[in-house]
């Protein structure tokens, strides 16, 4: 039996009727065609499906779509014009933060959340904070360099100052 839900997804009010076993990731990808959210392990391990639920990062593959009724969801598509995300994307481009790109949306969302909460981390702290996102190309050196570079740019930018106010 389908249950109707209503949520704000990337700023738009969305109504849907979902089977209880449908994951948020499947709702995003298959019904709403928001395919930046990738599905790797589908058991909460790899982090490729990380999205923001009410501004907090969460695994879309182990979040039931019925459970997000009334929430505000943002995927990578919804952060297209976000100042911090633009800095991160540019850093991933410059510092070789991706190879095949499969893990990248999850990496970007996790890094976005990390820099919003803790903008001044050293390399070891970034590695621990990003340990929930797996890159099977094993391109971690480039990913960590990208996040460090983005953190420096973000800390020096006017957008960061405004954000803190």
């Amino acid at each position: 039996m389908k249950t109707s839900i209503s949520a704000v997804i990337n700023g738009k009010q969305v109504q849907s009727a979902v089977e209880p076993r449908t994951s948020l990731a499947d709702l995003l990808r298959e019904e709403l065609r928001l395919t930046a959210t990738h599905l790797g392990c589908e058991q909460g391990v790899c982090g490729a499906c990380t999205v923001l639920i009410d501004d907090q990062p969460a695994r879309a593959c182990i979040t039931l779509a019925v459970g997000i009724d009334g929430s505000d969801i943002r995927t990578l598509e919804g952060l297209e014009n976000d100042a911090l995300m633009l800095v991160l994307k540019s850093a991933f481009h410059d510092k070789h933060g991706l190879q095949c790109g499969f893990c990248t949306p999850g990496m970007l969302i996790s890094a976005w959340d990390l820099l919003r909460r803790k903008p001044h981390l050293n390399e070891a702290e970034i590695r621990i904070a990003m340990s929930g996102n797996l890159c099977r190309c094993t391109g971690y050196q480039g990913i960590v360099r990208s996040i460090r570079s983005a953190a420096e740019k973000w800390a020096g930018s006017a957008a960061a100052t405004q954000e803190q106010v």
Partner: protein
Amino acid sequence: MKPAPFDYHRATSIEDAIAHLQAGDAIARPLAGGQSLVPMLNLRLAPADRLVDLTRIDALKQIVARADAIRYGALTTHAAFEDGRVPDASNGLMPFIGSQIAYRAVRTRGTIGGAVALADPAADWLTTIIALEADVALVGPNGRRTVAGTDFALGPYMTVIGDAELIEAIIVPRRPGSERWGHYKVARKTGEYAESMAIALIDKALGKARLIVGATDGAPLVLEKSAREIAAGTIGGGLAAAIRAELAESGRDFSPEKLLLHSTVAMRAVANSERR
């Protein structure tokens, strides 16, 4: 989609949740943060005919700071402890534990009540609440009761929780300010379940100590004899021998490798308490 079909009920109150968990022969499971249950459903390891979603029940989110203890609603997330959004009476142990469970995207959803209810021997909160001498407040079809954390887990994934019963809150007594805690955990990968973990609580001013070893083959072990040795000032090789002996006598079937692992981790937890 991965799981087998199930029914879903979004509970509006504790009473409503209990009513819907009473499902006769069907398997009804409460859903809190879902960070263990949903992976298990996706892998089809945990059968469920009905999920009762607790996340909209405000009564399970309440925090009550009392003079003697803090009562954390079962739905308090790991991230709430990590971020200091809830009061602490453990000299910083609970915020520390909250900050190193799995990964941030798990900590924002996972709850202390859900973690304790699952009673995975390798999970962090069960060992922590036993160390802190916390109580577990339960509510079910027969009313409310409170169980000491030390009596709560019966074995791996086995607890005293009855049919259609829920954890309502975890009640953590205020620890003395003179107490120092030490923690040590061995996990092969950052954020993974532990292979061994230990928490030492040592209060030199009051001459008291507690030593708990988790991630064993059953409920966490409270090492009372070793704690008395610590309180009496035993250190080094003498203490290590006492810990090994108590683990060996615990009735658990530890391999020599596990015995060495757990005793080493316990010693390191004791040593870490000196650094605080």
